[in-house]
């Protein structure tokens, strides 16, 4: 890293565009997104369906690359990295939580949480210990040996969060993490994310629901592939209480 990470934001997007397809069928999902996110922030991304929220999250999560523009993460220009280099970034710095939980079926909660550590080359004992700690953090230690099918939706999402946490990432990306949950479960997940953010993890979350967005410190509004406006320094639900 040539530049000092202290002097610049954790994440910088400059003129990000994303076009899907080619020729007359081409569709520009992002039309020049600029945004900076500081380390330790809790960001909610909102906007109508099809406005480019997931596309942006995929780029931020190093799963996809922009068609043009610059994406700096820790000062690294991610858009010029190859697939495996982006994989290494993900395994080192990022944790993912998906709307559909995306746990491995017929595999215990504990093994699901251990999975990222496997690709880090940790030994079995270290994997087990870290995974148990992560499950304990999300309050699911007693459920370690249960398979996803034996867990409720809220519990599955907490396992997914534990899996994202276990590598102690800098950033946790969550695309509609409460989209498949009822309000009560959703609020529990938001409490959990707030707590983790308090422990120093930067959180980027897409949500449709105003109620969930109130947990964030920054809200980014998307419309038609562009950032419409950004609300910063909000008073959060947790702080209102």
């Amino acid at each position, binding site marked *: 890293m040539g530049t000092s990470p202290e002097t610049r934001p954790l994440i910088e997007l400059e003129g990000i565009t994303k076009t899907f397809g080619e020729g007359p069928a081409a569709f520009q999902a992002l039309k020049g997104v600029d945004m900076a996110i500081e380390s330790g922030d809790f960001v909610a991304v909102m906007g109508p369906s099809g406005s480019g929220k997931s596309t942006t999250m*995929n780029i931020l999560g190093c799963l996809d690359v922009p068609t043009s523009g610059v994406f700096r993460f820790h000062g690294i220009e991610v858009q010029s990295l190859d697939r495996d280099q982006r*994989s290494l970034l*993900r*395994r080192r710095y990022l944790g993912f939580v998906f709307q559909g939980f*995306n*746990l491995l079926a017929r595999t215990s909660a504990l093994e699901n949480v251990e999975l990222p550590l496997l*690709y880090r*080359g940790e030994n079995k004992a270290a994997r087990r210990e870290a995974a148990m700690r992560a499950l304990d953090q999300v309050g699911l230690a007693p459920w370690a040996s249960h398979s996803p099918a034996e867990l409720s939706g809220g519990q599955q999402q907490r396992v997914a969060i534990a*899996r994202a946490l276990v590598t102690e990432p800098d950033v946790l990306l969550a695309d509609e993490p409460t989209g498949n949950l009822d309000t009560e479960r959703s609020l529990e997940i938001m409490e959990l994310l707030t707590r983790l953010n308090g422990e120093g993890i930067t959180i980027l979350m897409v949500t449709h629901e105003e109620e969930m967005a109130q947990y964030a410190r920054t809200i980014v509004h998307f419309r038609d592939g562009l950032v419409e406006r950004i609300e910063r320094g909000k008073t959060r639900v947790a702080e209102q209480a």
Partner: protein
Amino acid sequence: MFGMFGATLLLAFREIRRHLLRSFLTTLGIIIGVAAVITMVTLGNGVTASIRDQISSLGSNVFIVFPLRGDREVIRPFKEDDVEAVAKQIAGAEEVAGSVSASTTAFHNGADWTTSVQGVNNAFLRAQSIDVEVGRPFTREEESAGKNVCLLGPKVRDAIFVPDTSPLGEEMRLGGVSCTVIGVLAERGQGGGPNQDQDNTVMMPLKTVQRRFTGSDDLQYFVIKYDSAYASSAIQDSLIDLLRERRLLQEGADNDFNIIDTAQVNQALGAATGALTAMVAVIAGISLLVGGIGIMNIMLVSVTERTREIGIRLAIGALAREVRLQFLTEAVVLCSLGGLAGIALAFVLSWSLASVIDVPFIFSPAINLLSFLFSAVMGIVFGYYPAARASRLDPIDALRHE
């Protein structure tokens, strides 16, 4: 790194166990291919060994000479003077001895046993390396006078004599001829031809059997043991010349006798098994190719079924080569298990077939190991494309799958 590989291996086993029937059906081609190769090679070795054994029971450096139907469609038998002429005139002939035999029944003390009586002299025992285990061979006087003395094959002794008693000096009867037991032959096993048990025989002096059983001075065949310092072809040539002359065969007339050379039979046998092995290799190759394509197909199915899983792994940071290794490992484990099953099946098959066709079961570690390694390599060859395809999946598309 071992943690990673150990976990990958474990995962492979788990996936295979999850689809046990499918895995089994998939590897059937490999199982059958491997089992066929090993069984054929093992049985081939057994057959070869058994034939070599029979040939070596005829003795090495031995010709066997017997008469054929001649031009006048009558067998012209050999006589004792042919044996004497060969012994005298063929350089390199160490032992020359004739033989006749007849089937008969042996009686002793109320017990009876179907067997054959063979008329030979001691020269025959030496030529064929037949040992007398208990007692003594014939004396010159017994041979020339055609005495009623006999040497028992071990089977005959076991059949009609009380166990653990010595038959030496006992009187017994062969058909209508009584004889005194002077010895017991060493065990020789099967040989000479199908269903010919060399231990179920009684030997008497040649002259005795000719006089009392076959009723003529004809020989059925004679054997020549030659000095290995001589070329067998040279001896054979001079033998043919001599016999043609003695049998007054015209120039151009076919030989009315046949000479079997044990060394030649050995060579022919080697060539035959070589051809058989090549044929088996082709058949096995085809069956393994079909099996390999089956493996490739099922691995492609597996990649499609587990697209979402692959997406998850990629999203949390798996490298392309780690995903490739996972599927490659699965294919190799699957094929190796097929190979092991094939080896087990081959063991059962070749062991039981060997006992059915009555040849020795000769376990060959080399062909078993080779087959196992080959099936593992098949996993790499046919698992590579599906594994590469899995590793090239786009994580976002893969996560959206279904």
